[in-house]
């Protein structure tokens, strides 16, 4: 980084023979305070407006709408806890969607963290061609989710997909993947692991920060590879592992595009706005909580019930966000 040259230029540009701005005559401390507050507000204004318009207002409205009956036309009418009772009781998709979301959180987060760590450790050990390897492992992370999902639905399609073709040649069982309720989630997990490049790069940076003397000392003490990993690498990676796990949980609770597109493409039905399509093809196995908001609000026009699911999603996400900002763990410090 050319920090040095750029900054020197910056200072020379701002140089002034007399020191100004410290004490303008006739200005009281109070006046300066007020000016500073105004300045802060001015700099923060885009975000303050944005938070109000796109976070606080919709959140409050979602809370209110969750207690009303509303189909998007006319005016909402108060209905008390009816929506909550419907979503938690009669609506057949809520609990399966919650269970699916938990499955994805458990499986995807652990697989991604483990494989990201393994790939990171692999790449930093390779001497020649490590840059190429890093590129290869990172590139799938950038594949647009819809394109990546389409690619995997094709690769894993039971009839003509190359994966089942190869499995057949090897004499292995050929699952139905995205068309089989018990294989659709593992297929999505494979897709998620394919995009593990972001974690790999984060872990690589952290792995390269481990002081080499520690490894040398451990080797002198006769520590084997596992013990070096267990007692040197792992403690050093603790904070970044915590960060990866919690952000992974939050991201996976929002898991939306891949399961939805996979279900729609594999079933051959695109459920647009207002269309009633059986959600989570096959047999609801890929249905997640965020998809319920779309299904209820934009396909069934049951806005109150959609808002109930949105609020549940909000509470779950914020609980993990709070965990991330906890002062003790210091994973994402809000102070500097």
């Amino acid at each position, binding site marked *: *980084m050319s*920090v040095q040259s750029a*900054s020197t230029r*910056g200072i020379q540009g*701002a*140089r002034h023979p007399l020191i*100004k*701005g*410290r004490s303008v005559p006739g200005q009281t401390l109070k006046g300066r305070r007020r000016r500073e507050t105004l300045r*802060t507000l001015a700099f*923060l204004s*885009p*975000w303050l407006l944005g*938070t109000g*318009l*796109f976070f606080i207002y*919709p959140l409050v*409205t*979602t809370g209110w709408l969750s207690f009303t009956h509303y189909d*998007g036309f006319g005016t909402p009418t108060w209905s008390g806890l009816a929506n909550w009772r419907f979503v938690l009781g009669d609506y057949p998709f809520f609990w399966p969607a919650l269970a699916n979301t938990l499955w994805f959180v458990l499986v995807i987060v652990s697989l991604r963290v483990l494989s990201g760590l393994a790939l990171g450790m*692999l790449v930093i*050990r*390779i001497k020649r061609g490590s840059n190429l390897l890093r*590129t*290869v492992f*990172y*590139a799938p992370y*950038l594949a*647009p*989710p*819809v394109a990546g999902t389409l690619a*995997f639905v*094709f690769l894993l399609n039971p009839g*003509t997909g*190359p994966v089942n073709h190869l499995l057949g040649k090897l004499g292995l069982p050929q699952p139905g993947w995205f068309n089989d309720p018990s294989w659709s989630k593992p297929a999505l997990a494979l897709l998620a692991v394919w995009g593990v*490049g972001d974690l790999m790069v*984060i872990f*690589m*940076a*952290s*792995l390269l920060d481990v002081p080499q003397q520690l490894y040398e000392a451990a*080797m002198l003490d006769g520590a084997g590879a596992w013990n*070096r990993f267990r007692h040197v690498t792992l403690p050093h990676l603790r904070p970044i592992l915590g*960060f990866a796990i919690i952000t992974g949980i939050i991201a996976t609770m*929002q898991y*939306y595009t891949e399961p939805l597109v996979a279900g729609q*493409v594999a079933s051959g039905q*695109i459920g647009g*706005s207002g269309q009633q399509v059986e959600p989570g093809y096959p047999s609801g196995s890929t249905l997640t909580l965020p998809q319920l*908001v779309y299904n209820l*609000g*934009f396909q069934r026009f049951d806005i109150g019930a959609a808002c109930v699911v*949105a609020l549940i*999603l909000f509470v779950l*996400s*914020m609980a*993990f966000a709070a965990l*991330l*900002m906890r002062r003790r763990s210091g994973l*994402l410090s809000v102070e500097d």
Partner: protein
Amino acid sequence: MTTMTSPARTAGATRAADPNRKQHRSPKAALEWIALHAFAVAAALLFVLPFVFVGLTALMSDSQSLTPDLWPTPFVWHNLVQVWHTPGFPTWWRNTLIYAVLGTTLTLLSSIPVAYALACFRFRGRTVAMMMVIATMMLPPQVAIVPLYLVWAQDFHLTGTLWPLIIPMAFGDAFSIFLLRQFMLTLPREYLEAAKVDGCSDLRALTKIVLPLMKPAIAAVGLFQFFYCWNDYFGPQIYTSENPAAWTLSYGLQTFKSAHHTNWNLTMAATLLVMAPVIIVFFFAQRAFVDGVTLTGVKG
């Protein structure tokens, strides 16, 4: 304390970091070397193969794409042309580009001053503001979508256009603000203080001192935002699904399969055409990307 891994380290240290740097010529070390490299090659193949299969299938003839063949005979390059001329495809492409370019520009313009204030000003409520930024970052877009949709549809009558996707970007993006602030915290404070002593206003300090120092971070954040827009599916699905003229590539692509459901070759050709720009940009801007991802990895 929030510290960040210096991006420059990733590149230079890659080679030097191997604990077994000296080539031990013992048979055990040689065996380890072979195992390591065999594993690396196998893993790399697994990561590349999906791209390869997509690319090969995209070039097959209609009838061959229904067979389990892996190698196209003959190569039908015309598939790519045919997809490009599918009604709608150029429009989706143009819409995606508009969304991504305008969205990224607005995000950077609105997020930089906010990040500067959060990193460099001392004021009451700063910690709370930072917590709000992180909370917004973690907020699933589905949580707020119902009221927002109602406002865009009923008060502004803008659903079926790209505007509900683009306009919110003028009000700062939490993730971009967070990343830019993290980077600003690593800048040496003395430069700013010296400038203040010299009577430099905050706006001048930001544009003349901070921004030139932040080129790598701005590039990374800009690229992230560009890719976010390019890849976004949920936003276009909610706001533009009613009007095919406003669809983006991500939304249009999934309808492709049902329109051509017998031909995987054309669907894969379309998939390839959507992936290609992203991968090409990545190859040219790799450094910025990897630095950017490293920027997100905050350590305690």
